[in-house]
């Protein structure tokens, strides 16, 4: 199976520049610098690479939206990995920081950017320290700084740590946070490609997306677009967690059956229990029942099944799980992480958590479920940023597929009341 990102991931010392170079690291730069910047954008477009952070927007197309002839431009690498279930970027940052730097250099050359920031979530202090060390090594070798390898590209690259806020993974909130403000999202348009960091055109890409770029330059866009399905190209890092025997990050070719990921790669369900549900792409994507285990892991197939590929976090739940209890935890998370800027999200997430809590405690009624759906309806596509839609996803899908879990808790109340 083709491995773009994880080929050498467990190699001893890969985070040092010497080992990285001995494995062909930084070789793509020469190839990239031999081409014009626009040609690189063309190659990434042709490769079919889509954003790996959650939205799945075509990377090359995103770059081509940069406001013409407006400088300086900035790059912000989104390393705010906070989506529950997702832990792939941390592995890339800690184990192969130079791959990210190499991807960033090519991206900055293609987009004519001279300053880049890697925005890491505050809890990634260790990853940030490793990244700083790698950046220092790259400067010493002349891969960063002035006139890199005679290409004319000047590039300064820095790390920047957040301080605990899920919302900063939303790209415009990330920019506000990077500018020293509260991490609240901005109104779009203007999009960051036009007015981003410090009001200048800005490219924002996820760690995994940028890490794929050197491979595309080395191997050619055709080789990338030959992998996967018609519209989902290449590979995807999937964080498999929950009730599996071998949780871990796995690199899978787009279009791999989810059954294969859960049962072959991750070793199947713990204690050989029965699969009850899974969340395919992180807590913000609707959960699916076990009957959908033969869905293929790619953007379109998962969407057709009623969910999303998201950030690639496959959370597996066995038959012992009560979906209400699991959903309640996620509802708490979204309430906790709502930035409070817009009313439907700020009020809706709290209200939904309260209702779910009552159901879980055995004091809920059918009206509670109706109210949950009603609030969800009033939040969907009506919040300022996608956090509102994310908060709704586990609740609506849980009720849709596992109504009996709700009914059980509700019935208890009715029975108790009658008996009492």
């Amino acid at each position, binding site marked *: 199976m083709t491995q773009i990102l994880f080929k050498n991931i467990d190699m001893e010392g890969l985070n040092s520049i010497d080992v990285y170079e001995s494995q062909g690291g930084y070789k793509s730069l020469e190839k990239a610098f031999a081409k014009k910047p626009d040609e690189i954008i063309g190659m990434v477009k042709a490769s079919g690479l889509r954003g790996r952070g959650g939205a799945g927007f075509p990377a090359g197309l995103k770059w081509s939206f940069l406001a013409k002839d407006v400088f300086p431009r900035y790059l912000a690498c989104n390393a705010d990995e906070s989506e529950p279930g997702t832990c792939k*970027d941390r592995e890339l940052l800690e184990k192969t920081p130079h791959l990210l730097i190499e991807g960033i250099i090519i991206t900055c050359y293609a987009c004519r950017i001279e300053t880049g920031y890697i925005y890491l979530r505050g809890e*990634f202090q260790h990853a940030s320290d490793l990244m700083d060390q790698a950046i220092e090594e790259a400067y010493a070798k002349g891969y960063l700084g002035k006139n890199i390898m005679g290409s004319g590209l000047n590039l300064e690259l820095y790390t920047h740590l957040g301080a605990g806020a899920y919302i900063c993974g939303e790209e415009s909130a990330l920019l506000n946070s990077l500018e020293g*403000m509260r991490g609240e999202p901005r109104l779009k348009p203007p999009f960051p490609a036009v007015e981003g960091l410090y009001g200048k055109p800005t490219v924002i890409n996820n760690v995994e997306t940028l890490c794929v770029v050197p491979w595309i330059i080395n191997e050619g866009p055709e080789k990338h677009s030959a992998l996967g399905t018609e519209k989902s190209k290449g590979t995807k890092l999937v964080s498999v967690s*929950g009730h599996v025997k071998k949780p871990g990050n796995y690199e899978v070719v787009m279009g791999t059956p989810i059954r294969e990921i859960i049962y072959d790669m991750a070793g199947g369900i713990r204690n050989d229990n029965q699969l009850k549900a899974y969340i395919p792409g992180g807590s913000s994507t609707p959960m699916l029942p076990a009957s959908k285990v033969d869905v293929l892991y790619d953007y379109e197939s998962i969407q057709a099944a009623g969910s999303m590929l998201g950030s690639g976090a496959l959370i597996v739940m066995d038959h012992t799980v009560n979906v209400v209890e699991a959903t309640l935890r996620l509802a708490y998370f979204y309430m906790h992480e709502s930035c409070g800027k817009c009313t439907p999200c700020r009020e809706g997430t709290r209200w939904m958590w309260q209702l779910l809590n009552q159901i879980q405690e055995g004091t809920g009624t059918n009206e509670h479920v109706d109210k949950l759906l009603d609030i969800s309806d009033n939040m969907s596509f009506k919040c300022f940023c996608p956090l509102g839609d994310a908060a709704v996803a586990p609740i609506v899908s849980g009720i849709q597929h596992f109504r009996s879990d709700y009914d059980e808790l509700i019935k208890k109340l009715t029975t108790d009341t009658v008996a009492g």
Partner: protein
Amino acid sequence: MFIFTQEDENKIDKIVKKYPVKQSALLPLLTLVQRRDGYVSPEAMRAIGGKLELSPGYVQSVMSFYTMYHSEPTGKYIILFCHNISCQLNGADDLFAYTGEKLGVNGGGTTEDKKFTLHKEECLAACCGAPMMRINDTFYENLTKEKIDKILDSLP
């Protein structure tokens, strides 16, 4: 009284140079103080504001948005115990209760000897090693009661 040491001043000069706009250094400076003192006092907010030409009120408004900053003193070790879904599915609730009981801070808080601050935390991106906790900068994964005992007992 709050003062920046010479070492702090050197770090601050380096941090501020990373950005075309001074205000971008606000989170890094708050982090510097939080890591040095374990919390950010009102005096520290004023001092940071002075460095970056921001009002103390503004500094506080930004600081209060982020969960990693504390306005009250914390323990020597800050334990962030993940309770989000992947950890929940793998028994984090029991282990969190166990840790709270062991340290004498049920539900979280700072121990009397100011050694530990226990905090229930949202997802920390170590889902494949669930259940997990972060103590200061270190991630501890695949926790069990025995493992928690060993880790906590080994911290000086």
